[in-house]
């Protein structure tokens, strides 16, 4: 989280637009910026299972980052269009990436129903317009944070698993009927591609879809220092459990 926000700060200061792929160790439950959480999660169970918890700067609902790939994009507002256009373009590029791996990915249409509000329901419970689905189920969940003329968008591509653990970490798991399990890469790819192969396909589709030239680089010293400062905020219970 801290690195993602450091990249946003870097772009705000004139740094290059950035695409980043990463994964989590240990597994981590990320909470939506405005979702309720304080007193709602079973902290003992979370500790016992060795899971970290962080609150994102972006909206939406909880994601368990385990057996998944996280991407993040930081771009100046306008480079890929408005924030909403950015959302559409990034999702198109990601869908193209997983299609290269044989996944029948498409963008979710507008449901016409109610809009999902920040809540204790898992992110992958239901797709919203423009998110990536496969076989009618959500495969990649994404969210944005806009600040100072920069858009940060990040999201999670499920490799395997059903996110059912997100509900089991609640103090009072809802009794409602289980929603449809999300799609995963493993449902369509056997065997799963290696991490490097997956990243290579997503990056190639990104270049092709957006018509961009990209180059691999490291965080600058300034970005690393910024991330270190931001880590204090993201690791503080006052931020994670502020509501």
């Amino acid at each position, binding site marked *: 989280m801290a690195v993602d926000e450091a990249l946003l700060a870097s772009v705000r200061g004139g740094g290059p637009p950035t695409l980043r792929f990463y994964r989590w160790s240990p597994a981590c439950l990320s909470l939506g910026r405005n979702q309720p959480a304080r007193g709602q999660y079973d902290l003992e169970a979370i500790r016992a299972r060795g899971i970290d918890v962080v609150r994102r700067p972006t909206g939406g609902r909880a994601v368990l980052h385990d057996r998944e790939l996280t991407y993040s994009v930081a771009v100046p507002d306008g480079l890929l269009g408005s924030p909403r256009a950015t959302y559409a*373009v990034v999702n198109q590029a990601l869908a193209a990436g997983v299609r290269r791996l044989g996944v029948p990915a498409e963008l979710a249409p507008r449901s016409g129903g109610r809009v999902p509000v920040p809540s204790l329901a898992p992110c992958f419970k239901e797709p919203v317009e423009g998110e990536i689905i496969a076989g009618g189920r959500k495969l990649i969940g994404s969210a944005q944070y806009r600040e100072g003329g920069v858009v940060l968008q990040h999201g999670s591509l499920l490799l395997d698993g059903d996110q059912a653990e997100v509900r089991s970490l609640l103090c009072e798991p809802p009794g409602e009927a289980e929603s449809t399990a999300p799609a995963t890469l493993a449902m369509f790819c056997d065997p799963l591609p290696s991490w490097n192969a997956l990243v290579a396909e997503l990056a190639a589709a990104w270049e092709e879809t957006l*018509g961009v*030239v990209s180059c*691999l680089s490291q965080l600058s010293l300034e970005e690393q220092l910024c991330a270190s400062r931001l880590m204090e905020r993201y690791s503080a219970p006052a931020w994670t459990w502020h509501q």
Partner: protein
Amino acid sequence: MDLSRRLTFRLTPRGLRTYCAAVPYTLAQRMLMANVPQDLKYTKEHEYVKPAAEEGVYVVGITDYAQGELGDVVFVELPEAGRHLKEMETFGTIEAVKAVSELFSPLAGEVVEINGALDSDPALVNNDPYGEGWMIKLRVSDAATVDRLMNADAYQSHIGG
């Protein structure tokens, strides 16, 4: 996995064409649809400022254009009444379908009232941005600063109209 590795990128002319093809509606359509009342003041950050009934107090919210750009608003985080804000200080956030944006105070002043109705019905921002979807009422420190904000014509130009 080295956490510090990332791809930086720049757009090529082909990329810009890809983007244009990807956007399902034109900018001109959105601008024509946006309601910009003549009697309000505006900021570049898409907030409006409207005089309240009480002298020196102004109602602040986001414009019709901004709510249209954001899409369905699902959460609005506002400050507590009594807080003193500096000009352009963040006073809250707004979340629209998983996208969180900062809200900036257009003027320096004290928050004298917040719109509590947005707590249970944030869609008021979409349905009636200049009426029931207002956000905060500010007792402005220096009334002269209100005149320095954009008028409707300048804001219309700002959003490209």
